[in-house]
């Protein structure tokens, strides 16, 4: 381990070391002043963000190839840290009013974030697994953070059991791949796998299943609605954006850069998974009356849209653009979805009420600004122009058509049409039904809604900056 190794993983290092330090510091912060932990956690994230921005444009390996720092890593790190900051902002008041304000909350958040960041750094399957566990374990705890609330506990145990199951798939897949290639390093696999062997195929298949669980792709999505509904809303908001992006970070990197020889196998498979995910997520969302469940199915559907990039990337010529499209989509989705969840948090009441879509009745008249923001998020989720959601879909379907997958793009637009139905229902209830919605007036939450709404609109009208940023997401090439 050299100094150079340490500087390459600086953003990750800052977050995880800061988490360990905070663990101790938190002991000395009195119970009624846990807000300090939040501020300290946020400060750590800002420091990590500064380090991550410094790494834009780097193309390097460290720790003997175990760690990769390239454009892809830097873009994802900035996304994760940004999402982390929003999560702190949204949790600050929420966990206090829920009566679950404990210092560990923010520390666990930092740990899971560091797992996501390591995911984007991984240049070796073992590191992928390590990152996956670092990402998942704190999230299991966070999902059950509202204990002794039964729903929250149920969510945690469900998430844990299925997550552990998924991890098993990943480990077994890695073992088979190791059996086929005698290595776990991504560069080594590229060099070793000349012809696709059965072991290799099975291994990569299991790997796809395991990560499919993490990103909530159909048919590995069963846990999502229950966990999203049961977990404290602020955790769900973070999970639906961060954990998903974390899963995709590994999925795209490993398949596109380490298994190019197998592309003719995983390409069609990913295509079907993407199509099914888009279709089922959107169709099942129609039937939901609870906003958390609706957004849960919606997040499954959006995993499907991101997944469109994977079969497109099976085509080596389209791959770089497909990766960028996927990252752009994830960033746009982060803005939109965090915003939508911030509105949900604003309307949620202490007893867990205010979570039915019907509870939004009259919001358009009584709280025009909040309703407008929610309408913008809904329009962005369905992919209407002038929102970042539209540019994301445009970009990702473009990649699909470029790769000759016109029918997959067709599934994408048709399912977007289906999604319009249930997103519009929220708008209908807000603007066209009358009611007396009760909202919380909390400073940080308001700022979160405002920032995400502005971001959703701004990058929908002038996406140039964000496109350029996502354009930096390049893989370090393993071909010598």
């Amino acid at each position, binding site marked *: 381990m050299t100094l150079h190794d340490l500087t390459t993983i600086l953003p990750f290092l800052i977050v995880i070391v800061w988490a360990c330090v905070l663990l101790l510091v938190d002991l000395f912060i009195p119970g009624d002043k846990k807000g300090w932990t939040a501020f300290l956690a946020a400060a750590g994230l800002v420091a990590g963000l500064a380090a991550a921005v410094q790494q834009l444009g780097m193309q390097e390996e460290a720790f003997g190839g175990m760690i990769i720092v390239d454009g892809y890593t830097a873009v994802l790190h900035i996304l994760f840290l940004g999402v982390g900051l929003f999560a702190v902002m949204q949790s600050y008041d929420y966990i206090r009013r829920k009566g679950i304000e404990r210092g560990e909350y923010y520390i666990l958040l930092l740990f899971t974030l560091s797992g996501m960041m390591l995911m984007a750094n991984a240049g070796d399957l073992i590191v992928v697994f390590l990152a996956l566990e670092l990402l998942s374990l704190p999230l299991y705890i966070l999902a059950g953070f509202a204990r002794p609330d039964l729903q929250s506990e149920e969510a945690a145990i469900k998430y844990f059991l299925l997550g552990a199951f998924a991890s098993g798939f990943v480990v077994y897949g890695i073992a088979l791949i190791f059996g086929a290639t005698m290595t776990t390093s991504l560069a080594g696999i590229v060099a070793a796998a000349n012809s696709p062997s059965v072991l290799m195929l099975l291994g990569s298949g299991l790997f796809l299943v395991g990560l499919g669980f993490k990103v909530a792709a159909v048919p590995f999505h069963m846990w999502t609605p229950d966990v999203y509904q049961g977990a404290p809303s602020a955790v769900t908001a973070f999970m639906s954006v961060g954990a998903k992006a974390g899963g995709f970070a590994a999925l795209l990197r490993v398949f596109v850069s380490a298994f190019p020889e197998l592309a003719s196998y995983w390409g069609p498979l990913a295509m079907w998974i993407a199509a099914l995910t888009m279709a089922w997520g959107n169709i099942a969302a129609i039937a939901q009356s609870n906003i958390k469940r609706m957004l849960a199915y919606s997040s499954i559907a959006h995993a499907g849209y991101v997944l469109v990039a994977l079969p497109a990337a099976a085509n080596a010529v389209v791959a770089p653009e497909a990766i960028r499209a996927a990252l752009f989509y994830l960033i746009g989705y982060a803005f939109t979805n965090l915003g939508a969840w911030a509105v949900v948090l604003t309307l949620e009441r202490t007893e867990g009420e205010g979570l039915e879509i019907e509870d939004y009745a009259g919001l358009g008249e009584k709280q025009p600004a909040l309703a407008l923001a929610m309408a913008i998020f809904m329009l962005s989720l369905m992919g209407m122009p002038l929102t970042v959601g539209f540019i994301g879909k445009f970009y990702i379907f473009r990649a699909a058509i470029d790769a000759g997958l016109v029918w997959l793009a067709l599934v994408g637009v*048709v399912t977007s049409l289906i999604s319009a139905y249930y997103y*519009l229902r929220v708008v*209908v209830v807000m603007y066209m039904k009358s009611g007396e919605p009760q909202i919380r007036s909390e400073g940080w939450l308001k700022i979160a809604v405002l920032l995400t709404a502005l971001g959703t609109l701004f990058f929908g009208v*002038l996406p140039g900056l964000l496109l350029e940023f996502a354009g930096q997401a390049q893989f370090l090439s393993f071909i010598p």
Partner: protein
Amino acid sequence: MIEPKIILTLVTFAPLLGVLVILVLPRGRHNAIRSVALIASLITFVVSILMLLQFDRADGDLQLVARANWFQLAGVNIEYYLGVDGLSVLLVLLTTFLTPIAILSTWTAVEERVKEFMIFFLLLEIGMVGVFLALDLFLFYVFWEFTLVPMYFLIGIWGGPRRIYAAIKFFLYTMAGSILMLLAILWLGLHFDSFAVPDLIAEGNIPGNIQTWLFLAFAAAFAIKVPMWPLHSWLPDAHVEAPTAGSVILAGVLLKMGTYGFLRFNIPLFPDAAVRFAPWVALLAVIGILYGAAVSYAQKDVKKLVAYSSVSHLGFVMLGLFALNSQGIQGGILQMVNHGLSTGALFLLVGMLYERRHTREMDAFGGLWKIMPVYGALTLIVTLSSMGLPGLNGFVGEFTVLLGSFNSEALGSPLFAGFAAVGVILAAIYLLYMFQKLFLGPADKDENKRLKDLNWREIAILVPILLLIFWIGLYPKPFFELMAPSVDKVMAVLQAVTMAVR
């Protein structure tokens, strides 16, 4: 004179000024909000007149072009690209002309949430003008989809009893068509590395079988919007539930976005497919003419009758466009304007009646001529214009369309024109039937006896439309002159294809 490069941007975004002012006004000050909206739309109209003054009618090319890079996506420039030519200039003017009229018509009709209403209305105007001016496919799609959102709210918040159903149906139906167009736009962008329509037309050379698919994908979006039979079922719901001003704009302008789309994109971009599909489109158009007329006759609700008559009238527009000769296309464009004026006015008149009587059932009226003579006279003129009486605007448009389709090589048969002509007669039947039910006969219903005739505001709303109705009917030459050179350019593209086929 305004700098030619920015005038189209001004026409498009002038209503935004009104939106910003309204945003800071307190919601209770209804009259101030209405006045601001009216002034903003009048300013937009004035700017559009300035645009007309700078427009060179002898030039068939795109004029007053504003072109700048918007952003780059995957190495392809997406441009902010506006331009106007003979195909679009009249439609832009129609939009800026009808919007202040529609706003004025809401003065007493919209009392709730006036602030939001006016904001949505002005935003809608931006979207509509943008649709007619955009020359980059991406930009066009943005404007196209953007018009959905304000119209959705206009129907859904201020509409009739079944407004939510109608609003969602309108939204989903239209979106269903446009997503297919989006795929076609993506394909074109990938194939040509550009979204600029004039560049795509200049490059041409899209293989025939792919043209078929692209034509159909664009046609799906436009045919739903027009609406062509059998994709029209959203229209009666949307019209009946929409507030009067919404109906005026919906019929007057939004439907023209569909016919304009065929003219601007389908015909010049995919001329090969357009020639092949022309008889089929014409067939649907003629079915629409006859079907719309027949269903109109069966209606008991005046507004529904007028709504279905739109299906019939827009059939004429489509028939004219797909005659694919210059007479047909010119007639089609003029008929778009005519329908905007006549049907817009009819919806205004129906709205005025509804405001007084709160019903639109024809059986509830009768003998209104004696009670409301001014209203009756104005309605008579508009009705006659709508059914195509010589001397009024409808006749000029329909006659030119019939002439064009009768001689059309692309259609290959005068039968289309023959059946369409039957539609003219049917229009006379259902419109006169409506007029008779409302105005003639004994005034035997007590509720109707106290109805007040039109006030000055309402007359002021209608008079500008009537002036144009007479102007186009008596002296249509300047209107044809505006569009002729651009129509000739479209014809040149088409002739190149028919030459190649031979």
